[in-house]
């Protein structure tokens, strides 16, 4: 992708977002699509969030317990550090990187297939704002459901650590629970939720852009789907860096 091409894509994305972020033609139809989006993009993602968060949470606690082993540090440090990693970065950033693969490719391929089979043209000919009708409910549904996924992820990550402490016994369950409660700042949870909602917007809107602007056939839909995951991953990491510096720095 050339530099000029990238700039052009940003411009096309901005123009598309202007059409997407407008008042829906029919609120009743928007709500139908919104509810469908909540189920397909959000509820259907809970299982992957639960499984990944549980195992990664367990591994984080295991790694910290094995590697942060100094007489200078109290044992409950394992709980404190694991909690901060899970709350601040894992449940929002890493989880969104994973979801960009599942949700992003789903949105890009669905809208892309509609584009190449003429279904988007049908909407345009009818006088429906196709960008708004197809992309906005998905963006809104994913952003709205993101806090639920993040809370699931936080809980399951910490629960994974708890199970590891229960099985391995180092640190003990009591020390771990003391650790995850020590020096707790509620603002970290809000920070994580807000950040993940921002990532949710990026994932759904960028995937919508790639799907909506597909030209060609089935191969191009596949390419758009892959491109959306790659670009989303880069954008999430860059946004995370900037956001962290702005809010925490």
């Amino acid at each position, binding site marked *: 992708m050339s530099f000029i091409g990238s700039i052009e894509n940003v411009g096309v994305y901005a123009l598309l977002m202007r059409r997407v972020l407008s008042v829906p033609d029919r609120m009743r139809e928007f709500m139908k699509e919104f509810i469908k989006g909540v189920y397909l993009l959000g509820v259907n993602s809970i299982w992957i969030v639960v499984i990944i968060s549980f195992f990664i949470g367990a591994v984080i606690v295991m790694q910290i317990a094995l590697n942060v082993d100094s007489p200078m540090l109290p044992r409950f440090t394992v709980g404190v550090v694991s909690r901060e990693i899970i709350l601040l970065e894992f449940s929002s950033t890493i989880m969104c990187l994973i979801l960009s693969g599942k949700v992003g490719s789903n949105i890009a391929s669905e809208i892309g297939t509609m584009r190449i*089979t*003429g*279904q988007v043209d049908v909407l345009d000919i009818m006088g429906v704002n196709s960008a708004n009708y197809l992309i906005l409910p998905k963006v809104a549904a994913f952003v709205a459901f993101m806090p639920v996924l993040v809370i699931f992820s936080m809980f399951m990550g910490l629960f994974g650590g708890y199970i590891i402490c229960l099985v391995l016994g180092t640190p003990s369950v009591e020390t771990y629970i003391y650790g995850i409660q020590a020096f707790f700042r509620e603002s970290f949870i809000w920070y994580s939720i807000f950040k993940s909602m921002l990532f949710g917007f990026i994932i759904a809107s960028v995937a919508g852009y790639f799907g909506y602007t597909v030209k060609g056939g089935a191969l191009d839909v596949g390419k758009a789907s892959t491109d959306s995951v790659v670009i989303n991953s880069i954008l999430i990491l860059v946004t995370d860096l900037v956001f962290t510096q702005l809010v925490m720095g």
Partner: protein
Amino acid sequence: MIEVKHLNKEFDGDKVLNDINARFEKGLVNMIIGKSGSGKTVLLKCIVGLLTPTSGDILYDGRNFLSLKTRELRRLRRDIGMLFQGSALFDSRTVLENVMFPLDMFSRKNNRERRKRAEFCLERVGLSEAADLYPSEISGGMMKRAAIARAISLNPKYLFCDEPNSGLDPKTAQLIDELIEDLTKDFMMTTIVVSHDMNSVINIGDRVVFINEGVKEWEGTKSDIMGADNEKLNDFVFASDLFKKIKEAEEIISEDNKKG
């Protein structure tokens, strides 16, 4: 009535349509014919607004489509129904939901009335039994009929059909042709059909526009085609064995009449 005046369309400097002028009359099936790649689908896409012409005017009952304001354009679009080559039904909706979609978006009627209208449209195209099936569960011909039902659900003034018979067996193709013709006459629509199927032209074409390499070569009624002295039109029309035989038969009859 739809008028096209001095329409030009270029893609990256390549002229695809060159100064097209044509009139498409109300209550008639107006056909645009031509070889593959001649520019007929591009012309249709310009007329319905899926492509913006490089220059020229498109008039819908005197209103210039290209200079309408957004609100007027959206209002006009509700008077347009279109049948795509691949039907373009929404995969995630049943046949009935597909037909109801334009009504759900634009009709002020309540759900019961919208449903009744959609069922009427399905009945009109003979597809009532497939109302609850998904597009993937029905045949190509049924998909075309469902797409026609969706196109007419808002009672449009203008109906556009892009290769309505592609991929269909001759019997089903004839059914679709007859349906388009009946609906055009019943609802007094301005219908434009893009096709390269000469059987369709003979079956339902009231007026015919022949496009070749982006240029309008000929315009007339279907009965004029046989006697047309346009070489390119004759090349296109008589490429079909059926039409060669019809032409030969007409010549024999005409000679017999002269003798007799």
